[in-house]
């Protein structure tokens, strides 16, 4: 039995200093007995006999002379076994679904270890989400980390659930699993996801970690790491293709700021600690594939941008780590377009690896580049209309304006239950592009124009004649 200390000297917010006589390890877990309740904490700093502990469940009721602190001798771990699938845990990894605790076959440190870049395999398998704005323009591949940048009141949850429901790989099938980490969201939101998984039959293949808005904020720092430790186990030990959804990362960062402020650290931008980038990367970089291993981790972190501001530190630093971003647009949402994806500002960095002949279709890259360019021109024209009125536009600008309208209505917009194949997505793209004269289609190679633009034009001609 390890020693318990009743030697707390200071307590401040979620932080407490304890004097110890044995050596305590950095980041070691601590059990705290407050009356009949067992709370948890973690060592943040060791300075000789003085140990700084962050309390997951807060400091209420902690007595400086009487509360007992027991150091458990290791960092925070998660018990793992194949039957964690289908289970619901709290933010510290305890089951909350009335089932018995799974009998762990192994325990892993939730901080994990960085994947050796040499061992990584480059993600290049196309994932069809059935959403044109993603598949056609900002293509997702297996092992990618692609966050959804959203704002309050936008349908990010619907989109994430739709992706979890529809995502498939065309070339091969494998075991798939979903790991869901709820970070400080409301009960209803979490329940929405769980219901969605249940309806699609994915719940048995899911692991859910819940840290809801009324759960301790500091516990939130452990929850995504729990989720990813489970995901790594499923992916790299059991060979499954794991989709990880973490929502809402903004709440996670707030918790980090809370601890940093309590430690009186020099703040970076907007009061967030200077190591926010490093801390976030330790979470996001756990997505990926490893050479010679079957499984993969594809990650969908969701974050709400305060005031829809993309330059806020949380979306900003996230964008620097992740391989692109899906940004939702309030104006599109207001036009009742779903999903309201701002395709211009969205980006998938791994797109070019996942598309083309043998993966999607040979014309994919050129077509989507052309769609981007034409849409950009259309938006410019729309901006001009606001100032000068439509009559001031040249014929060409007017054509681009019509294109942008049609593009939003037909290509971006689809139902939350519409599951479009990649061929359907690309064909819709061509049907829009065909409204434009061939000479303007500079981003498309002649061979593809011949194959898709001219051929279809000929068909139409034949139909008209026949």
């Amino acid at each position: 039995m390890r020693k318990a200390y009743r030697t707390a000297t200071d307590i401040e917010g979620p932080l407490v200093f304890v004097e110890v006589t044995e050596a305590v390890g950095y980041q070691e877990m601590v059990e705290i007995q407050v009356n009949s309740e067992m709370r948890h904490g973690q060592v943040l700093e060791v300075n000789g006999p003085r140990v700084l502990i962050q309390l997951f469940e807060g400091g209420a009721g902690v007595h400086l002379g009487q509360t007992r602190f027991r150091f458990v001798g290791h960092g925070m771990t998660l018990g793992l076994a194949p039957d964690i699938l289908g289970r619901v845990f709290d933010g510290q990894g305890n089951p909350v679904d009335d089932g018995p605790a799974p009998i762990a076959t192994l325990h892993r440190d939730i901080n994990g270890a960085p994947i050796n870049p040499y061992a990584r395999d480059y993600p290049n398998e196309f994932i069809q989400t059935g959403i044109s704005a993603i598949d056609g323009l900002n293509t997702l591949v297996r092992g990618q980390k692609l966050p959804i940048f959203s704002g309050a009141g936008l349908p990010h949850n619907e989109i994430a659930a739709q992706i979890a429901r529809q995502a498939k790989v065309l070339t091969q099938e494998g075991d798939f699993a979903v790991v869901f980490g709820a970070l400080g969201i409301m009960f209803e939101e979490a329940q929405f996801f769980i219901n969605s998984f249940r309806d699609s039959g994915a719940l048995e293949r899911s692991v859910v970690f819940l840290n809801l808005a009324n759960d301790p904020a500091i516990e939130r720092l452990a929850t995504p790491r729990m989720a990813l430790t489970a995901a790594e186990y499923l992916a790299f030990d059991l060979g499954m293709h794991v989709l990880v959804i973490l929502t809402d990362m903004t709440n996670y960062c707030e918790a980090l700021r809370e601890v940093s402020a309590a430690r009186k650290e020099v703040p970076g931008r907007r009061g967030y600690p200077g190591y926010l980038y490093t801390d976030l990367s330790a979470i996001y970089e756990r997505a990926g594939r490893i050479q010679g291993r079957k499984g993969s981790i594809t990650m969908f972190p969701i974050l709400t941008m305060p005031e829809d501001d993309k330059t806020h530190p949380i979306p900003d630093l996230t964008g620097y780590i992740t391989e692109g971003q899906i940004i939702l647009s309030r104006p599109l949402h207001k036009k009742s377009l779903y999903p309201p994806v701002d395709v211009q500002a969205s980006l998938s960095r791994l797109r070019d690896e996942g598309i083309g002949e043998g993966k999607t279709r040979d014309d994919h890259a050129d077509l989507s580049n052309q769609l981007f360019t034409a849409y950009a021109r259309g938006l410019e024209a729309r901006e001009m209309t606001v100032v000068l009125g439509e009559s001031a536009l040249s014929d060409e600008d007017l054509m681009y304006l019509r294109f942008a309208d049609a593009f939003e209505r037909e290509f971006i917009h689809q139902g939350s239950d519409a599951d479009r194949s990649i061929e359907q997505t690309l064909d819709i793209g061509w049907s829009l592009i065909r409204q434009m004269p061939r000479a303007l289609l500079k981003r498309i190679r002649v061979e593809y124009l011949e194959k898709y633009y001219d051929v279809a034009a000929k068909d139409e001609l034949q139909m008209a004649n026949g």
Partner: protein
Amino acid sequence: MNVGTIAKISGPLVVADKLPDACMNDVVQVGEKQLIGEIIELHGDRAYIQVYEETAGVRPGEPVLSRGEPLSVVLGPGLIGSIYDGIQRPLNILQKRYGDFIARGTTAPRIDHKRKWDFQPIRQAGDTVKAGDVIGTVEESALITHRIMLPPRIKQGVIVQIEEGSMTVDDTVALVRTDAGLEEITMIQEWPVRKPRPYRRREEPSALLTTGQRVIDTFFPLARGGTACVPGPFGSGKTVVQHQIAKWADAQVIIFIGCGERGNEMTNVLQEFPELIDPHSGKPLMERTILIANTSNMPVAAREASIYTGITLAEYYRDMGYHVAVMADSTSRWAEALREMGGRLEEMPGEEGYPAYLGTRMAEFYARAGQVYCLGSENREASISIIGAVSPPGGDLADPVVQATLRVVKVFWSLDARLAYERHFPAIDWLASYSLYDTTLDAYIRKQFGEEPIADRMLAMRLLEEENELKEIVRLVGLESLSPQQRLTMRTAQSIREDFLHQNAFHKEDTFTSLRKQYALLRLIIHMHEVAGKALEDGVAIQDVLDLPVWENIARAKYIPEAELESYDALVLEVSEAIAPLKRPSKSEETEASAVMEASEA
């Protein structure tokens, strides 16, 4: 060896007591796991150590061992084609020994000590040699002949014995008699990373470093031995620009430092470079590349060291007489590592929490670039060019890291989010970017290609500037208010943007453009502008010019393969022939028109 004990642990900062005779910047082994660290502050026998590995679980009372030497890299044949972490541990060996995840307290030889190299002496016994003199060579890769040099510490001596043969890096290849006695020369050297390697004399950069990227080479060129920075918000294509330069620049050695960036990006380089063929030599690109990968989730202190490790390797190859290009992606992450350590040391912060010495450190790093005459008696010319990516928060160029960088670098490629949204890549903003080497390099270009490319470039730049002003007018009062000449300017500028500046990194023919092709392509566009301008003066209607199908041929001209450059002459002819038959108003119409004018004036 000195032994102290750990007193305090706070993230990557460990404080050790009772560590006597420690020196600043000495390398130490921390704790029972023997994590690698470096002393960054000393107070009496109390040492502040930044630890290059994760410190979870380390306890007070554990030992700290000082090796009594500064953080160094091992230099010798076998570096090319390697992938290292921030403190030169070979990641491929670590994977073999310790598995797919980075374990702690791991060690591995930094270059292969067992491999035999075929040493060919080029000096002989009896020769007097100086520091930096090449005494022999080994073929390191298909592209790189590794020159074995007399290390800088031996000022001068006489070769007593030198032999060719198959040898490991530790074998003695030569014996040199110096004033201090007999020195055994091996193929290996060690050098502290924070100390620049010496050279004989520094020169001003004067030659162009071609990158095959049109917007860079033609408009904002980088000189060999120069410095450039690429700031831009996320998603604006910093990494693709860096990768493109690493792939196609005509440097002889490429050091790519992935400093606090994505793991998958390093994997991309690792998997792609062996497949890619260098257009200058026809050999795989990996045969000239060294990678330093300290990804964002790897320990932050090693990130700080990674750019020094990279630049020291670069200096070593420079000393052999090679032109080296260093990519650092991203220097902002390095600056953040400085900030994090500064915060842990409870230093007084400067701007945005960055330490006050940020600017000094930044300048010291970029100052290690340059065009030099190497040490030694052979008069070797060599260079290091540095291209640093900067990732300012929110793309805001007022960021202290951007500002500290702009104070020292000479080329600024400003990436613009708006261009990236339109998928105009490389998203280098032609109005904001600059190169301070352009006048120096004009002389270089004039010598090889004559005056024409320079005149074309200046005209093209002027047209782009004018387009920007005209766009403002169009936005306010509409297109109709422009004169025919102005509308032609708009059209030509569009062609320059879309058909010249825009370049598809993923297109086989478009990803690399030789200087000759760049100039031919620009000539074609400018030629169109000139003959069309003439036609307008003759009274041709602007709409007739804009409707010409030949614009489409110009748009596709960038896809003409390098081997068929003579097609550009045909295209130039085609342009002239397309303009010639356009309807000019007949003499009578003209007189009629002037008669009407006179009448109305009257």
